[in-house]
């Protein structure tokens, strides 16, 4: 890690309580009154740094905590434990006012193009709002100019900006959503599954658009997705998550050529590939555990084919091998 991190999360935990009020927590067991508190452990101890200029992809299946991670970094939810830094400064405990200077540097693109635009605001209003909010000194015509240039840059005709979102297709809405993020000229963008809700041919358009923006504006990306094919194409480094923990972090090419963590291996093998007759994938055992009752030890041990006694007991730590970080006892012990 020669360069300093632009964004970092350190020892991050996030739990969502699911027990209701006091009464829901109580239950009778063996004649005794017991109070149980349960929570979804969305993130359990993640360390991650995004280097300036890179595109870090976070992949994982549903419930692995990748979207929660994105939201914690953006300050939409507060972590239960741990911290988030931007430019080496802690930002997760800032007040709304103190957070403002960071708000214009960090922007977010969302998954669902049908929900991410306010249906009662025109495109013009949607795009003007963040610009005006962060640049109160600009005149109306200056703001309009910015809106025109940013709509052009995402390939939407500026003359359509007096229309409402429902008059646009899903792909166009996603472009507008990207325009809104770019409007305040950020340096860091969190993209939470920005193309998963789109059709294949539209996915390509939006992905190309994001790559153009990355080049032209020198953006740093945290790209959240479940689609490994997109990761291989877009990311410079990849972080694989499973049940709220980080399994493996490696440069993209390396991860795809030599996956080391057993979960990464299984995940890569499961992608349906063109021109491959039989599905030669690594079969995982058992069921995915719930994030409410995490397994002891390594969270992956109940499904892993390399599990030994230590895995069921001890949580593996992240170890660095060359440029790859892996949390796995089997790799550490040289069993894989």
């Amino acid at each position, binding site marked *: 890690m020669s360069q300093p991190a632009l964004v970092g999360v350190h020892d991050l935990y996030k739990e969502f309580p*699911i027990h*209701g009020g006091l*009464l*829901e*927590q*109580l*239950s*009778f067991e063996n004649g005794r009154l017991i109070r*149980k508190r*349960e929570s979804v452990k969305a993130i359990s101890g993640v360390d991650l740094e995004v280097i300036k200029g890179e595109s870090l992809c976070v992949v994982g299946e549903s419930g692995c905590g990748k979207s929660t991670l994105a939201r914690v970094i953006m300050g939409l939810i507060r972590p239960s434990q741990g911290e988030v830094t931007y430019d080496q400064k802690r930002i997760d405990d800032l007040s709304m006012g103190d957070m403002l200077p960071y708000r214009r540097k960090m922007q977010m693109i969302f998954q669902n193009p049908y929900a991410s635009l306010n249906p009662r605001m025109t495109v013009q209003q949607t795009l003007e709002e963040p610009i005006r909010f962060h640049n109160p000194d600009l005149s109306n015509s200056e703001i309009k100019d910015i809106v025109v240039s940013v709509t052009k840059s995402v390939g939407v005709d500026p003359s359509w900006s007096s229309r409402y979102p429902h008059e646009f297709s899903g792909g166009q809405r996603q472009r507008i959503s990207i325009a809104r993020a770019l409007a305040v000229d950020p340096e860091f963008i969190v993209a939470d599954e920005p193309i998963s809700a789109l059709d294949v041919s539209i996915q390509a358009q939006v992905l190309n658009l994001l790559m153009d923006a990355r080049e032209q504006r020198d953006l740093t990306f945290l790209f959240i997705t479940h689609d490994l094919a997109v990761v291989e194409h877009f990311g410079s480094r990849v972080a694989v998550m499973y049940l709220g923990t980080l399994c493996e972090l490696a440069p993209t090419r390396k991860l795809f050529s030599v996956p080391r963590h057993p979960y990464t291996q299984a995940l890569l093998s499961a992608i349906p590939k063109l021109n491959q007759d039989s599905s030669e994938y690594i079969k995982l055992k058992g069921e995915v555990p719930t994030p409410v009752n995490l397994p002891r030890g390594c969270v992956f041990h109940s499904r892993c084919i390399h599990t030994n006694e230590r895995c069921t007991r001890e949580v593996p730590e992240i170890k660095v091998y060359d440029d790859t970080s892996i949390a796995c006892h089997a790799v550490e012990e040289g069993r894989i």
Partner: protein
Amino acid sequence: MFAFFVRRLAQAALVMFVISVIAFSIQDNLGDPLREMVGQSVSEEERQALRDKMGLNDPFFVQYWRFLKNALQGDLGTSYFFKRPAVDVILDKLPATLELVFGASLIIIVFSVPIGVFAAINPRHWFSKFAMAVSTVGISIPVFLTAIMSIYIFSVELGWLPSFGRGETVEIFGGWTTGFLTWDGLVHLILPCIALSSIMLPLFIRLIRAEMLEVLESEYVKFAWAKGLSPKRVWFVHALKNTLLPVITVGGVQIGTLIAFTILTETVFQWPGMGFLFLEAVNRVDTPLIIAYLIVVGLIFVVTNTIVDLVYGLVNPTVKLARPHGGDG
């Protein structure tokens, strides 16, 4: 199950507490017990002495506590008008009201489910359109107007059915008088029950139809068709149960409205039930009777709502009464 009961019990206690506070403040402000007891001729000093003796000058909480203690023992005071314990007076009238509610509920259930289901299954059928049109008009006619119009048509103009009273009743176990066992009693029940059910019936027909239409569009019903099941099985096994779940909840809420409507119905038909009694008590400022009515009605709400919740929990497998929370679902 435990959490369910505790929660239910706590809620019931809360509701009854609120009602008792309301009832007590009514008693505190409405009507002077001394006036009823001693009349006008007693001097102010004697009155004060009596007030002290009766605890009427005690702090609010002491008085409330006394009220609560008496209430828990079933003593809500003596009706000024009937000169009998208010609870007894109310309980005498309870069967009449409950039979009215029972008859109306019977009409609602017996007609709303088949009509609602039929209208959902055959939306283009003439009968469905007719039923929906009648329902829309039906929910727009206030209960007391239905009552008045039915009296005008069936009693005044046609002279087929009686227009007031319970008719002949017989006493069955423990002093419960019923009109269901005599011809005269049944005839007297017809119009009031129809009037009482007149606004709920269309409401439930519309509700059941809407819910059923939604369920029929669901993926699992499509899947049931794809399995090649008979229409009967798809409609009555797959769709109906899912339709009725939300209807049960609404039903629980509507019981309150139904009881409120008994006041209207009983007034129009001079039905000797609790609602009629309550209005008379209001006009006579018979405080103990007003309070007794409040508390009895509150108890009825609490009990029926608990039953509805229990039934819902038993019918819906995704609600776990046995465990406090939903697990991994």
